[in-house]
């Protein structure tokens, strides 16, 4: 009986964690059109397995190890297209619809000049929910969707974005009070 209860709790916890991940299946059809595709799915067990192979001696890998310690999953889809118009807003609609409930958009950057649209969403962690982060970057020839499930430190993640192959930008870190801003560059 006790085992049954433990199993039930495990199933419920797994379901809650799985429920946090965005359903990105509708993007699969873009794989045929894209010239370059990155499709990474690291769920809880695989993420922990991968983290075991990160070196503590390498400072960047040690940071990644610390960063992912409390994560339940990382899902990345990037599509690079030869030409414009190979994907449409309707391809993103199912994802946007998922992001409308329970998620808060903390950043929305729209550049008319570069025709680039970047949105960052956060889901707060609750008693039964691990929280999460979603990033949607769309420009005419590239689409990037990232979903991180679990407690994530944005400062550390941003810092790693500058370290792991991307030149680090000397950005001043500031934390303004406004939770969301939408900008139109130009």
């Amino acid at each position, binding site marked *: 009986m006790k085992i049954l209860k433990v199993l039930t709790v495990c199933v419920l916890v797994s379901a809650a964690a799985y429920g946090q991940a965005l359903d990105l299946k509708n993007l699969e059809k873009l794989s045929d059109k894209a010239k370059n595709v990155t499709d990474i799915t690291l769920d809880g067990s695989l993420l922990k397995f991968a983290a075991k*192979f990160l070196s503590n001696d390498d400072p960047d890998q040690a940071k990644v190890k610390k960063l992912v310690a409390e994560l339940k999953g990382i899902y990345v889809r990037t599509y690079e297209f030869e030409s414009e118009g190979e994907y449409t807003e309707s391809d993103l609609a199912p994802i946007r619809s998922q992001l409308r409930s329970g998620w808060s958009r903390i950043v929305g950057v729209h550049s008319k000049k570069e025709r680039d649209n970047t949105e960052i969403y956060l889901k707060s962690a609750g008693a039964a929910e691990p929280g999460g982060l979603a990033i949607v970057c769309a420009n005419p020839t590239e689409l990037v969707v990232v979903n991180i499930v679990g407690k994530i430190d944005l*400062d550390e993640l941003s810092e790693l974005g500058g370290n*792991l192959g991307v030149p680090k930008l000397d*950005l001043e870190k500031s934390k303004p009070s406004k939770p969301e801003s939408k900008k139109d560059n130009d």
Partner: protein
Amino acid sequence: MSNLEDELRRALRREEPPADFADRVLAQLNQPAAPSWWERFSVLMKPPRLQWVAVTLMVSILLPTAALRYRREQQIRAEGERAKEQLLIAVHVAGSRLHHAQRKVLESGRMETRL
């Protein structure tokens, strides 16, 4: 008919054994009997041969087991390295996009996000 009788007579005629026949038969009888497989096996089960048998058996069991285990560990390591690479790429993509958004916000001249 007489031919057949002649042939039979020739075939069945008494022949004297060679001179050393009796000696050879006696020599064969005096030789010790060849050991049976069980006798040969029981000899192996007695020291010091038993030790060599045990060592051979252990090596023949442990060596393939160790080889299989080593191969499995190599496979796990390769899978782990692949997963690690994927993790690093995923963190890189997520981090660089955050960075990108941060830069865009800064480029606009105002920092109004929680980043």
